[in-house]
């Protein structure tokens, strides 16, 4: 079975802090994605990566950056956390048949 893990299930950070969310997949997938999920808005794509060191902006990249130094690891970085970045963050990797496999999510609260 494909496994996608995220470094934390719950995280509380203060405004202005730099926040790292880590995601690791074990299926050698090339494509990886970061989403945030908010009530009434569904899942929105922040960034995705189609290869090591390659990245592309999604629909809402502002305030975020990403890093993909190794194929299995895709990190989401909040350079200076703000309260409007309080959300559920979901990482996914994608098979060659287009199916996405999701991690359990990180619920981030910024106070």
């Amino acid at each position: 079975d494909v496994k996608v893990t995220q470094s934390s299930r719950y995280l509380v950070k203060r405004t202005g802090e730099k926040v790292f969310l880590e995601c690791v997949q074990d299926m050698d997938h090339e494509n990886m994605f970061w989403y945030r999920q908010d009530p009434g808005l569904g899942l929105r794509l922040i960034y995705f990566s189609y290869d090591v060191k390659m990245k592309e902006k999604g629909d809402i990249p502002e305030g975020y950056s990403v890093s993909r130094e190794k194929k299995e690891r895709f990190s989401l970085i909040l350079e200076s956390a703000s309260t409007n970045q309080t959300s559920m963050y979901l990482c996914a990797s994608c098979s060659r048949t287009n199916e996405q496999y999701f991690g359990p999510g990180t619920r981030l609260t910024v106070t």
Partner: protein
Amino acid sequence: SQQGEEDPQALSIQEGENATMNCSYKTSINNLQWYRQNSGRGLVHLILIRSNEREKHSGRLRVTLDTSKKSSSLLITASRAADTASYFCATVLDVTGTASKLTFGTGTRLQVTL
């Protein structure tokens, strides 16, 4: 931007009944997928239907796709309490290029009661 819109937003049925959820989208697609999310968890892929397919089955799930109406439906037959979850449709516009991005709808919350 939202590509898929699910209908209804919430659905409550009794165990054993069938549940039908609908999804409408705006542009031409390569394929459409349905996902399930239990409360507070990640999404789980259920089924994928390609634009040249009209119907697909997987266990108690049946998915239809009408590209002329830009709509899809997910039918869960003989529902169980364990089917309680949110269900999302997601569309893939283009499988060429760098990566196949999914665009998700806002989901249908299904409650199955005993």
